[in-house]
């Protein structure tokens, strides 16, 4: 049976079992490989996407649970105001090292700025604690989120 999803504003139709995690649909069926697989149990944050504007881990989210909900991925987050600000700040602060976790970091940061336009350190901790970075870019991530929030460049 064909599943229909709204991803990045476009309607996509495909065949997938209802229990297939959204991440598998994105990467293996739709070829959108910007979203990464990390741990597979919602503990690292690499697979973060937005569902109805909220950051969720796509590796544990059955595709049946997102029907009729708007999905935004790293491929399109630059088209949203907060996503655009975050991506620019990320480049300005040169956050990225190896880059594997950064799709997820950017998605979480963009969702944070929508709900909390001027986050303090505690807000950043609460929103970003579930996104792990093996290279330890946390200091630059924090700095870039603050830059994105107040629009200044370092």
């Amino acid at each position, binding site marked *: 049976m064909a599943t229909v999803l709204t991803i990045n504003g476009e309607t996509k139709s495909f065949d997938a079992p209802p229990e297939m995690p959204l991440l598998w649909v994105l990467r293996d069926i739709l070829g959108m490989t910007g979203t990464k697989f990390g741990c597979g149990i919602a503990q690292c944050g690499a697979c973060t996407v937005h569902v109805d504007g909220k950051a969720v881990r796509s590796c544990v989210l059955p595709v049946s649970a997102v029907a009729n909900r708007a999905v935004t991925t790293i491929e399109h987050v630059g088209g949203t105001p907060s996503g655009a600000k975050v991506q620019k700040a990320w480049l300005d602060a040169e956050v990225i090292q190896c880059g594997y976790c950064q799709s997820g970091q950017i998605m979480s940061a963009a969702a944070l700025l929508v*709900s909390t336009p001027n986050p303090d350190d505690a807000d950043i901790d*609460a929103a970003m604690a579930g996104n792990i970075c093996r290279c330890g870019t946390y200091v630059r991530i924090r700095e870039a989120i603050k830059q994105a929030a107040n629009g200044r460049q370092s």
Partner: protein
Amino acid sequence: MSRTMRILASLVVIAIVAVALGVFIIRGPGPLDFAGGTKVALADYRAGKPTGVPARLEKANLVERGEYLAKAADCMVCHTSPGGKDYSGGLGFKLPFGTLYSTNITPDKETGIGNYSDQDFLDAVQRGKRHDGARLYPAMPYTSYTYMSDEDVLAVKAYLFSLPAVRAKPPENTLSFPFNQRWAMMFWSAVFNPDTRFAPDTSKSPEWNRGAYLAEALAHCGECHTPRNLGFALDNRKKFAGAITAGWQAFNISSDKATGLGNWRDEDLIAYLSLGHAPGHGAASGPMGEAVDHSFSQFAPEDVRSIVAYLRSVPPVPSPDLPATTAPVAPASHKDGVTADAHGKKVFASACASCHGWSGESPVSPMATLTGTWTVNDPAATNVAQIVLSGTKRHTPDGALSMPAFGSAYTDDEIAAVANYVTARFGTKGSKLTAKDVAELREQTAD
């Protein structure tokens, strides 16, 4: 008779009366005594058929009927060890006085029940008596199964005997004295096993009688949900009022409006039993999750409705430890609401918030919503700690949703902290678990 003899005789009489009275008081009412109507023998009941299989299986062969009944009695969950073959036993029940292992009930002649005659099987299931005459411990809920009809017990036997024989010897029990004295269970059984078959209540509907048979004789709800008395038997004065079993809280399922099922809608009860989840009531996890996966989800819809009709009739017994109402949705921001346990908050932010949200309403799935569940509203936090330790998985027609087990990823201290944070933020009263409590909960779960 001499004076001494008379005194001795009266002392003996007094002792007998005292023991009889003690037994009477401790034993209390039977599981169906609350209904109060006239009971008739099954054979004399004409209004309906409370025993056996649902209509769609009426014409099925004995093995198929037995399969339905074995699932309704949930034999497999206890008689299968993690990673072991179905029904081959070896699951360990950790008790304060040692570990008890379930037996192999596949038809293997040496290590299973291959040599059981029909009468042997009836004796085991309805009377707690083994093939070799030894007594079973009441971890095997024969005081519930005793209400099964002979026909249904033997259908289960036919099903079990249709399965492949598995050669598997469960580990020896490690019970300490005096609990390792099996013969002593003879007395326990004499007092606490009614050894009687289900007798329909003519004052109730056929649907109620079917539900009573399913809930009491087969599904044995009371074995987890009814508190136990001094003799470790079910205390039906507090029928279905909730109890701790295998380290998990089996919540109140009496008809109490505040702390039981009185305020659940029929459709919620039906969904919870058949899918393991009802909106606003959370998901079945731990032993109840297993009961849903292997038993209730396999029930015919009319059988689930019968159980619901029966549950509705169980007298309300309040749980004094639970709040009168569950807590509302927590604030959307991590900064508002309870922020007591900083350590717990840190764990929650890293491991839990992405699925459960800061408000307790999951952005992922209603099944992961914490708001409104007894688990987070129980100030003992027993099940919060257990679910964090062992994770949970819910199968539904739309796919499975799971939470990983954090037992080996976080310390007892961290798990206590996050449980205390979760109950404070999403429940009515924060728990006060310590690392030692969590260590004890780890010890109690069956494996």
